[in-house]
């Protein structure tokens, strides 16, 4: 897979005093959804600004879609949502999108496509309302619509769920999932880790301008070194035996839950069958992205 984003040893220092990025390197391959994570002030927006050609690195090399950032050949294939999207407030949503089409060099305005986009971000019915009258969430939805306007190959989204209510956040995640299914590459910064975890393939974590971790989500979280087994019932005596074999046992109305190392799974299954217990479910347990993020960041503080 070719890399659509290449960030090699990038350093950015503001006014010779504040080091926003220090030797940051990562890559994003075509077709991936990459979560760009970090606490506030970590350097996420600076990195995204460099990717878009708004800022210039002091050292290091950056390539986006095979071009230097800011090259219009790259920008033709990028859909971008800045953090706290803002636009000319006197316009209506269709006029704004028409303006963006013109800025993309499209001479023919497809009102059908504009209507479809507005429907996709649930802004249908607000075509005549000026943006100045929009709520924060509506502006964010409009920002997402403009990012999708030119059918981009790569989407760079800075906090796309910012300002949205839970339903709006779910809509955005569904949208990202559909983009992923359509083979688009998405680079998204977000604070809502449990939600991002559902759709991302790759994770880049930065903190205080330094790369903390990068890699495929599956590799970082592991395939799961623990197994959870639920059985319908287990006698006290067999429960003690399960504990002796290394299981953590807890009882509830739904049944008996046991957590053991993956390596002990087969032996435990055979033991349970021998007791006559019915196994209701068996699943691999793995850490969450949030756990990983907190662990990585806390280690550095």
């Amino acid at each position, binding site marked *: 897979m070719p890399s659509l984003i290449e960030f090699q040893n990038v350093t950015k220092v503001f006014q010779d005093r504040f080091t926003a990025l220090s030797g940051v390197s990562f890559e994003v391959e075509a077709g991936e959804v990459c979560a760009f994570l970090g606490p506030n002030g970590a350097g996420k927006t600076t990195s995204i600004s460099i990717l878009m050609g708004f800022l210039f690195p002091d050292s290091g090399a950056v390539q986006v879609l095979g071009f230097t950032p800011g090259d219009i050949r790259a920008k033709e294939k990028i859909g971008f949502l800045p953090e*706290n999207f803002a636009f000319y407030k006197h316009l209506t949503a269709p006029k704004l999108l028409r*303006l963006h089409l013109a800025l993309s060099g499209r001479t023919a305005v497809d009102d059908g496509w504009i209507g479809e986009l507005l429907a996709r971000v649930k802004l249908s019915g607000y075509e005549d309302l000026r943006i100045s009258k929009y709520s924060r969430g509506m502006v964010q939805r409009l920002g997402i619509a403009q990012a999708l306007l030119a059918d981009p190959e790569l989407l760079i989204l800075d906090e796309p769920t910012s300002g949205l209510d839970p339903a709006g956040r779910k809509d955005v995640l569904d949208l990202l999932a559909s983009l992923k299914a359509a083979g688009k590459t998405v680079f998204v910064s977000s604070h809502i880790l449990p939600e991002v975890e559902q759709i991302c393939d790759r994770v880049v974590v930065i903190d205080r301008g330094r790369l903390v971790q990068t890699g495929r989500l599956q590799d970082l979280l592991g395939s799961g070194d623990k197994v959870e087994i639920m059985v319908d019932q287990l006698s006290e005596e067999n429960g003690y035996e399960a504990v002796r074999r290394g299981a953590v046992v807890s009882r509830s109305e739904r049944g008996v839950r046991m957590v053991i190392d993956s390596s002990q799974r087969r032996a435990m299954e055979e033991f349970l069958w021998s007791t006559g217990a019915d196994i209701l479910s068996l699943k691999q347990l793995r850490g969450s992205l949030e756990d990983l993020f907190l662990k990585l960041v806390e280690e550095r503080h």
Partner: protein
Amino acid sequence: MKIRAIALSTFGTLVRNKLIVLFCAIFLVLLLFVTTPLSNMRHNAVGEEIVLQFVSFLMFIVSGFGSLLAAWSAAEAVAGEMKSGTILAVMARPVRRWEFLLGKYLGVQLLMLVYVAFMFGMSYVLAAIGGQSIHAAPWVLIVYPILRYAIYSALAMLLVTVMHPVLAFVGVLITSVLALLVMPGAPSGFMTDQIWMPLYAVLPSMSLLSESQFLGMTQASLQPIPWTNHLTALVYGLDYALVIFLLAVWSFRRRALTRD
């Protein structure tokens, strides 16, 4: 297409700018006040020369205000985008930095064209209220102010790429005052030749770019000036504006684009 879209959008934003609208409204009200003395002049049958000198003075003020409007609009056109953060969405599109700046510049020129049209109409209206008429060639009254505004707006655009818009505006204001002071015949006695000469060489020549050099206001008509004089003045003005604008493009090419 892209440049036109930016220019029209800039024009649309500027005519909605509260500060610009407020200043224009105040200025218009002040102009309306002067219609009374002009009307009195007509009734008292004062001479044509006095009326046209009064109109000439008013138009000098209107023209000066236009220079301020050009400078502020150009500074605001770029700085306003930075302040609101709208520049990020625009520059994320396949737009080159020079295309963005050119679109902004043309948007400002569109505004100034409207202003000059207003100024042009106003000079005829004021003269008519005073019971007189202006017989000058209209294109002189339109093209020369446009050239001056093109220079001042390019200068403001250059300065705003490196400094706060208010400072850029003050910078243009100082430049325009100095340009008037170093005009031949202007009261610049307090300047030594070592100061006067470089300023005269560098600053835009207001004597060359003023339409009044061609107007005999007492007759309110064009003096017989060879067309080569016009051509020289216009080429000089265009060249000056172009050089300043290119400097602005050069300065803007590495400007950090962030929400200020």
